[in-house]
């Protein structure tokens, strides 16, 4: 029969039936149902299997604390493991599968673990699986891994998108039960910027799940009145399906809004979920409370659930788990469930109350001073065995059992900054510490104020206080009359009886015995107990389990619960999809691209691009007939050496340094001298860190007495700017110097090769004489090109050839490269990419990232003498430490294979011939290697111990990773034009 367990009333929309499938079987529910309520309506109690023993389990709660009813929702790439059926809104066509079972939910082979349970005690795995040692990875562990885990991820790319956002408010209200709504009304009317966040689909909290909380009005009506008013206020933002999952420093909260999870799939261009970072001047925690169970033997059967959840199912979703129910309680709240379900026509088999002094009822049987000893029913509860006040036992038939062991305030968010809650004896529960954070106040059940009247008033009053803190005046509004019943509870945690297992943590299968064993073995601190037994470490983080276990541990230790304390509360409050945190930053959008000014042109040329930090640079430019990258690169290199080439070098960092003291400032920043650099000249500069090791290199061009342009390597543009600002602001705030980055503002091209000048003369306006005499090596100047376009020209060379770098405003970069290509046709101009750039600089022996890796001294780079001892520059003092000045330290050398057909690999190590290949004999390593068309073989740069003295000698080049072991000759690092004649022609 369809929806056999559907009751009358409820807040579901019976006019909108929805079909769905669970484990391949089709069912029907209504709009407003959760997957759990719809399954219950269809008399499905068995929804999952537990983690360790694979015990049959049914839904336990009606909210995010659910330990049992976890399913694989959806299919294909959208499959979502471990999804709580209680938090899954039903939509038409929903499909879900049970998980952690094989082959089926009703018959699970791994349930034989349950039969072996007496050997699988807490931590049993620490005591075995040790022999023989090799069997762990091969046999034991794979078997354990297969059995463990819960649901399956598809292994496919998540097809949905996620988003991030940022919100600001005066008051963030977390939870929309009576206290949250009263607070929102208070703050909203006061004109404060308010965010009301509710994890549920609708606002109202327990007002939706209970009968008669308000005495003169139906709870629902009041909720809709309040929400109606709040939604008319522009200063109030109402957010449902939004979980505030974490509190971070200084009023920052993390929230996840599930925008599209209630739909079969997100609409086009819309995210599945949004991660909100909320900046709240003040926050109010009104997150309510979570009910806790009472533990007894076999208390885990499908049909056993929290009494409050049973009530929520009946009142909100018009569903009962069974037509015959029993209640086991230690407080008055449990009786409410019986009243509400009785009113809906469900048979109340009995209310079993551990207390002697209990409310009575004429409608159903109340067994005071009674306890449940055991339960029966393999795949679903059939009956419970009750020990009556007089000691006799009685078997009571029921298909569902509601447990009420009291309520735990949801203190989590109040404890995310490492505050711990305190035990309140009167109401037998942990409440937030009163000396809490002034940024976060707590109201209602979350504060241990359990009556509706109390919740309403505390919500409003705490909102007033929070706003007063912000100098916003606010007043407690008129609030509805509400029940104000005191908490009547006599703590009762677990039934002491026979030898069977009684579950504390349902999902992770931690029983009373496990905690007892942990204690017996010395795991007495609460953290030890948790870690040894895994209690509270499941997907529900022990929301319904922890307090019961703490009570048990307290009893075992002979201490109070206060002395035992809690474990640490950590975000997230409930698990959050990992994609949400990444938002849009994934795939190609993981990081922004930086494109060079010639990108469009290079793409038209068919260039192959490479990532350089966030930049995309042309790596080489294949031409017709070239099938291997080496062909292209060799051609580009040779073209530069023979005639002329052009390369986009815009990515180098450029920092504009101005001010009367600019030269003095640079004199501090660079280890070599800059004070006397003439205007119109460029100088190579080496920058050290204060620890004396090389940080970066580049050039500084003096455009005027008070104006320099500094270049940095591409990778260090940002750190160097930060470094320079540190010294400007923090060490020499008295210097007249101003810095600004201009990396983006100029398109800069290297034009290199014997014909570079001839080419540039065709482009540069005739007013500017760039002859060798007028514009010699290391000259710089501001010029114009192509008819009065302002430009800069630097005669510097990375390739070792006659070369210039020419810069124009970025927007003209595309036109300039096209013009250079056009003008250069007569010289067979060749565009070259980063690969050829690298070969050219290795041939010339210039250091780059592989050599400037933060581990090199100036001396290692062959620039030891550049470090001026006559002035105070950053790093000079500590560069003088003895180890960094040792004679036999590494030096940059060149390497060539003796057999020119062999290839040197960067990252190979250097050994003396005849030595055993081991660390003790390690002589250095290859930093950069390339095929040099100029030399006609593989060449490399390397750091070699005492290398300067070893030019001309032989060395073994070994890369055990590649089975490479070849002989090489040590050379000067300058494979081309060591005297620098080519630069100066």
């Amino acid at each position, binding site marked *: 029969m369809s929806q056999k367990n559907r009751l009358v009333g409820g807040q579901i929309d019976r006019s909108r039936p929805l079909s769905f499938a669970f484990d391949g079987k089709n069912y029907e529910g209504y709009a407003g149902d959760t997957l759990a309520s719809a399954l219950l309506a269809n008399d499905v109690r068995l929804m999952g299997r537990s983690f360790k023993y694979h015990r049959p389990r049914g839904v336990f709660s009606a909210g995010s604390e659910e330990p049992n009813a976890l399913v694989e929702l959806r299919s294909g790439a959208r499959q979502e493991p471990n999804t709580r059926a209680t938090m899954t809104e039903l939509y038409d066509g929903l499909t879900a599968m049970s998980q952690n079972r094989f082959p089926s939910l009703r018959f699970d082979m791994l349930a034989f673990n349950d039969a072996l349970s007496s050997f699988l005690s807490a931590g049993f795995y620490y005591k075995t699986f040790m022999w023989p040692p090799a069997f762990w990875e091969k046999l034991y562990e794979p078997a354990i891994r297969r059995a463990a885990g819960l649901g399956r991820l598809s292994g496919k790319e998540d097809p949905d998108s996620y*988003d*991030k*956002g*940022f*919100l*600001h408010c005066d008051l963030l209200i977390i939870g929309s039960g009576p206290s949250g709504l009263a607070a929102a009304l208070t703050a909203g009317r006061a004109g404060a*910027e308010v965010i009301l966040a509710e994890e549920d689909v609708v606002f109202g909290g327990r007002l939706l799940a209970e009968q008669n909380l308000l005495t003169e009005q139906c709870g629902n009506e009041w909720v809709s009145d309040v929400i109606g008013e709040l939604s008319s206020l522009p200063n109030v933002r109402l957010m449902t399906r939004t979980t505030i999952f974490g509190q971070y420093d200084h009023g920052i909260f993390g929230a996840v809004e599930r925008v599209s999870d209630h739909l079969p799939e997100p609409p086009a*261009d*819309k995210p599945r979920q949004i991660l909100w*970072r909320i*900046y709240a001047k003040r926050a109010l925690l009104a997150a309510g409370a979570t009910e806790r169970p009472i533990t007894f033997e076999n208390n885990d059967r499908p049909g056993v659930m929290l009494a409050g959840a049973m009530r929520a199912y009946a009142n909100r979703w018009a569903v009962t788990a069974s037509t015959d129910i029993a209640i086991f309680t230690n407080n008055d709240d449990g009786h409410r469930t019986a009243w509400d379900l009785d009113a809906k026509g469900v048979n109340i088999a009995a209310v079993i109350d551990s207390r002697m002094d209990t409310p009575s009822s004429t409608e159903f049987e109340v067994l005071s001073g009674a306890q449940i000893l055991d339960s029966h029913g393999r795949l679903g509860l059939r009956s419970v065995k009750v020990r009556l006040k007089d000691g006799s036992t009685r078997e009571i038939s029921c298909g569902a059992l509601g447990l009420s062991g009291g309520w735990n305030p949801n203190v989590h968010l109040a404890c995310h900054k490492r505050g711990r809650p305190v035990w309140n004896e009167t109401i037998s529960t942990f409440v937030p510490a009163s000396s809490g954070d002034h940024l976060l106040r707590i109201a209602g059940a979350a504060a241990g104020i359990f009556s509706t009247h109390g919740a309403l008033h505390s919500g409003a009053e705490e909102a007033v206080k929070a706003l007063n803190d912000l100098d916003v005046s606010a007043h407690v509004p008129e609030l509805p009359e509400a029940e104000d019943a005191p908490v009547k509870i006599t703590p009762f945690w677990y039934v002491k009886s026979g030898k069977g297992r009684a579950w504390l943590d349902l999902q992770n299968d931690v029983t009373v015995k496990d905690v007892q064993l942990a204690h017996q073995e010395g795991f007495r601190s609460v953290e030890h107990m948790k870690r040894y037994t895994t209690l509270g470490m499941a997907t529900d983080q022990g929301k319904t389990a922890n307090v019961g276990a703490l009570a048990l541990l307290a009893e075992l230790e002979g201490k109070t619960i206060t002395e035992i304390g809690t474990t640490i509360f950590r975000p997230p409050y409930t698990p959050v999809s990992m994609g949400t945190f990444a938002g*849009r*930053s994934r795939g190609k*959008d993981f990081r*922004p*691209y*930086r*494109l*060079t000014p010639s990108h*469009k042109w290079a793409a038209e040329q068919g260039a192959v691009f490479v990532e350089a930090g*966030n*930049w995309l640079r042309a790596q080489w430019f294949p031409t017709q007939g070239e099938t291997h990258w080496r062909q292209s690169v060799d051609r580009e290199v040779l073209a530069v050496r023979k005639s002329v080439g052009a390369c986009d070098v815009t990515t180098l960092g450029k920092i*504009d340094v*101005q*001010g*009367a*003291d600019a030269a003095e400032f640079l004199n501090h920043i660079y280890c070599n001298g800059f004070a006397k650099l003439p205007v119109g000249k460029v100088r190579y500069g080496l920058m050290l860190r204060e620890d004396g090791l090389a940080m970066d290199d580049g050039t500084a061009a003096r455009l005027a007495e*008070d*104006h320099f342009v500094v270049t940095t390597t591409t990778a260090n543009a940002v750190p160097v700017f930060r470094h320079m600002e540190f010294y400007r602001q923090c060490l020499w705030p*008295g*210097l*007249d*110097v*101003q810095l*600004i980055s*201009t*990396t*983006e*503002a*100029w398109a800069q091209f290297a034009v290199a090769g014997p014909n570079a000048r001839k080419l540039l003369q*065709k*482009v*540069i*306006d*005739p007013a500017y004489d760039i002859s060798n005499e007028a514009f010699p090596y290391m000259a710089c100047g501001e010029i114009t*090109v*192509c*008819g009065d*376009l302002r430009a800069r020209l630097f005669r510097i060379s990375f390739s070792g050839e006659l070369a210039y770098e020419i810069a*124009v*405003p*970025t*927007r*003209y*970069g*595309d*036109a*300039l490269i096209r*013009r250079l290509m*056009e003008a250069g046709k007569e010289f067979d101009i060749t565009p070259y990419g980063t690969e050829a750039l690298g070969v050219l600089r290795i041939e010339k022996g210039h250091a780059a990232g592989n050599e400037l890796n933060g581990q090199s001294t100036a001396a290692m780079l062959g620039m030891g003498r550049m470090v001026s001892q006559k002035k105070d520059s950053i790093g000079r003092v500590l560069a003088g430490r003895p180890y960094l000045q040792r004679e036999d330290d590494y030096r940059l050398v060149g390497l060539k294979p003796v057999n020119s057909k062999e290839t040197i690999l960067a990252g190979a190590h250097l050994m003396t011939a005849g030595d055993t290949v081991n660390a003790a004999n390690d002589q250095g390593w290859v930093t950069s290697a390339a095929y040099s068309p100029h030399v006609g073989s593989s060449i490399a740069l390397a750091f070699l111990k005492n290398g300067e003295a070893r030019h001309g000698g032989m060395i073994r080049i070994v890369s055990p990773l590649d089975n490479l072991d070849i002989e090489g000759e040590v050379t000067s690092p300058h494979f081309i034009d060591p005297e620098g004649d080519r630069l100066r022609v």
Partner: protein
Amino acid sequence: MSEQLLAPLTALGNDTPVVVTIGGITICENPDLTIASLAARKDRGAELHSKLQADTKVQLPDPGKMMFAEDVAAIWTGVEQWLLLAPISSHPDYAAEVKTVVADSASVTEQTDGWVVFDIAGNNLIPMLERLCNLNSKALSSGEATRCLIEHLGCLIICRESGREFTILGPRSSAASLHHSLVTAAKSIA
């Protein structure tokens, strides 16, 4: 050959600016601004202020603010540091023009090509801005300008009309990525 003038490209790599309308939101690339940065020389702030005001009527704003004078906007960008924005058509060599005015009371740097400029307009841009940056965009009023991060990019946001008109300056080399972020956010809230 050198007499033939070079033709500029917009930051998005076209001859003409890109304009996109999504829902009620228009995102418009603006290539018509020239930009110069200005940093007062040591202890010359007062002199700089008076020179600028005398010659150009430009008043230099306080932190987080922007001020207009005729066709020039001045934005505070750092301690004793500002960006000046002006129409490129009437100020073809703007940095040089400013330098003439301020002489050695300030360092001036040409920054026109350092940035891509997007003007965005719509009846309510707040939901879009909320998805992009951590500013309290709802509280931004006309004449406020501040730096912020948009999808890993350091940008400058200028509020031209509260909630309805904003200008976003971003690093020019990432113009395409920034544009993609703006369009994605607009679609997401449309």
